[in-house]
């Protein structure tokens, strides 16, 4: 059994979060992850408080276990959503892009655990100062909105910079990834791409098929100029973005092209002209399984690896 401080902090069996993926991480997926012993996370995206309230009520009817809600602070409804999460006594709030500063205090006062996702050491230190309970450091390997640093480089630097527990995200697709980030100093993992293939994940089958077929070099980052770069699987839409970038297109042009594209892919199944957000680890994930199978397989594998790693060490020193 792999046990870390994250397990006792959040009262979960396995130190694994399912990443909050907009348009995709609904109550059903989150409930399945929580029931399987991880922390399921509902993604708020740009949804209204009413919409999110329905998802929260649903997950509470599906599981008694702890769950989280990922709050998109840039949403026009951020204020209402923040109040909703306090009323609903949501156990864990995970924050993405934007500044949670003013909300963080209110959430902490309500007894909620707050865990921001960060792309750099400076952000990690900032949120520790504001009272965050833990930090998720997300490497550029991940899908969706990405920073510049890799999980390999970001994780140990964030671990060194803060005293609160660090959860690593980005590029973890199996037990090897778990063992690797624990070696880097993380106390837990966040996984997104692999959970796209969970049987309980309601994303369109075309989206799942594209992730299943993907290999290591099949992702690209688009929209760097907009300040919100996004990692997606290559397709016709990505080629259109590249054309705009080649011709020195404006931020407005890029944002216009990107509008509604995630919905197109995730809900409508248009994987040619939709945004198929995915991490680089898509090349590794190759089967559809239940959340329970995913989590137990990953942690059993991690445990075996961690036990066997000592076989590299022999009696004498490397002289």
């Amino acid at each position, binding site marked *: 059994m792999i046990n870390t401080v994250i397990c006792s902090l959040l009262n979960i069996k396995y130190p694994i979060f399912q990443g909050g993926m907009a348009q995709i991480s609904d109550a059903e997926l989150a409930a399945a992850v929580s029931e399987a012993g991880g922390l399921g996370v509902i993604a708020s995206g740009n949804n209204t408080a009413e919409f999110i309230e329905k998802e929260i009520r649903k997950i509470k009817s599906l599981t008694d276990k702890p769950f989280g809600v990922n709050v998109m602070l840039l949403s026009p409804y951020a204020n209402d959503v923040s109040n909703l999460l306090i009323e609903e006594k949501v156990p864990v709030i995970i924050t993405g892009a934007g*500044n949670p*500063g003013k909300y963080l205090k209110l959430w902490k006062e309500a007894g909620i655990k707050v865990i921001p996702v960060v792309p*750099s050491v*400076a952000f990690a230190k*900032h949120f520790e100062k504001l009272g965050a309970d833990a930090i998720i450091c997300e490497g550029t390997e991940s899908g969706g909105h990405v920073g510049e640093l890799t999980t390999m480089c970001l994780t140990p630097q964030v671990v060194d910079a803060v005293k609160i527990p660090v959860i690593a995200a980005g590029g973890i697709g199996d037990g090897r990834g778990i063992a690797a980030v624990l070696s880097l100093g993380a106390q837990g993992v966040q996984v997104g791409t692999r959970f796209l293939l969970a049987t309980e994940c309601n994303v369109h089958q075309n989206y799942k098929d594209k992730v299943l077929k993907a290999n290591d070099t099949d992702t690209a980052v688009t929209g760097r100029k907009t300040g919100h770069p996004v990692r997606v699987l290559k397709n016709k839409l990505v080629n259109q973005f590249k054309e705009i970038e080649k011709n020195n297109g404006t931020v407005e042009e890029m944002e216009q092209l990107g509008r509604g594209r995630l919905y197109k892919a995730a809900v409508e199944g248009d994987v040619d002209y939709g945004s198929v957000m995915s991490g680089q680890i898509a090349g590794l994930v190759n089967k559809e399984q239940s959340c329970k199978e995913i989590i137990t397989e990953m942690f059993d594998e991690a445990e075996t690896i961690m036990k066997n790693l000592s076989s590299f060490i022999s009696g004498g020193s490397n002289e």
Partner: protein
Amino acid sequence: MILEKVKAILVEELDVEEENINLDSKIKDDLGADSLDLFELISKIEDELDITIDEEDYGKLVTVGDIVNYITDKQ
């Protein structure tokens, strides 16, 4: 004094020449900072000038002059 310190931080963080920094230089548009740079900049200013900049005020810091005025008011 404050302007000198802010200029020094900008030179170091953004790799710009000191002579290109004026009070009305816009941090993003003129000095080429992106959102991540801006955040690092703010963190550095907080550490070196021993002040706290509220998140709500980040949006107000458009020019070098804005930063200098903000720090002056805080001290």
